[in-house]
């Protein structure tokens, strides 16, 4: 009878291990504390968004109302000069610096900042654009926004209100949103971090 012991052990162990595997796959979140989740990105997106709408693009005494000089300076890739705005304006995005330097987060963190709204009233929300010829806010689909779409973002051209890489398709991307007023239009500042 002892001859069955090996077979017996094999069957017993496999039934038990199958049950263990089943339990761990079936209970979501058992291993969550030990997995890499978007916890860091959640905080980064929220804080970057708050900082942008309360200090960088707006006067801290007047949060959520974006000032055009600082907003344009922020979205300009070259150093925006002497503008007194609440971000690191020595960061030159054409000279190797990145958006992360401008908002003050670590280089490994990837972020995209967009200001979007439905300005022309067609029911579609698009990224906004500062039309330097008429000094007004238009949508990126507007023909007035031509220079910005061509990515000619040097001084005294149209400014496209999007900065940073396009968000990842494969990783968890955390979005933070703020309602703001930009030049009389109600817009949304969207910060995506991944």
């Amino acid at each position, binding site marked *: *009878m*002892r001859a*069955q*012991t090996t077979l*017996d*052990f094999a*069957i*017993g*162990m*496999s*039934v*038990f291990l*199958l*049950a*263990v595997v*089943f*339990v761990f796959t*079936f*209970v979501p979140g058992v291993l969550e504390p030990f997995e890499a*989740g978007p*916890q860091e990105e*959640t905080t980064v997106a*929220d804080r970057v*968004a*708050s900082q942008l*709408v309360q200090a960088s693009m707006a006067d801290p005494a*007047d*949060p*959520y*109302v974006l000032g055009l000089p600082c907003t344009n300076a922020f979205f300009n890739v070259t150093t925006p000069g002497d503008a007194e705005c609440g971000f690191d304006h020595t960061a030159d995005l054409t000279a190797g610096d990145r958006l992360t330097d401008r908002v003050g987060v670590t280089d490994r963190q990837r972020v995209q900042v967009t200001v979007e709204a*439905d300005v022309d009233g067609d029911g579609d929300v698009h990224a906004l654009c500062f039309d330097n010829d008429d000094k007004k806010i238009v949508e990126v689909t507007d023909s007035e926004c031509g220079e910005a779409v061509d990515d000619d973002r040097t001084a005294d051209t149209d400014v496209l209100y999007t900065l940073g890489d396009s968000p990842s398709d494969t990783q968890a991307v*955390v*979005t*933070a*949103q*703020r*309602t*703001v*007023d930009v030049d009389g239009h*109600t817009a*949304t500042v969207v910060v995506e971090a991944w």
Partner: protein
Amino acid sequence: MGGPGGGRGQAHTLEGVVAALLLLASLVFALQSTAVTPLSASTSSQHIENQQESMADGVLSIAAEEGELLTAVVYWDESTESLHDIGGGGYANDGDYPSGFVLGDLLTESFSERGIAYNVWIQYRTPSGEQRERRLAYRGVPSDNAVTVSRVFTVYDDTPLAEADGTDDSLTVSDPGANFYMPDSSPSTDTYNTVRIELTVWRM
């Protein structure tokens, strides 16, 4: 069975099955004791609440900056004794906001188009110090995950009522002919009432 060591041929299999049953039983017990729904509290729903709170704060800040919060509070039709263009207690449907009610447009743009519902209440005091509430916009009972932001400001005796198009009326809030819903909480001073406007938002 029988013989030396008889009856022990299946011991490990039986142990394995019993251990597996024990594990499955604890799993069933754990799943039965909690209900995980899409609205259960988690770090991600906390994040969404934080975003909604910040957006609501932005809406009130913008409205306050443009003076539209005060306009919304004094948006009063003295002849019908109600808010402009409405019979009942508060605005209920999107798109029905009169032209002068800019706060309503702000709310529609910021929340309705994203599937977020909102209530706006006005709180004020009576001369005896009791607190009263009045609906400004009402979409129903908020969910457990609703967030609220508020602003406090003062209405003075000489604050004019707002016309339907948002311009100043010739009547002030303290005029007897205004039939204003809010009483003068401090009749002996120029202060009329201290108003708290409360915006509650939640995901539908």
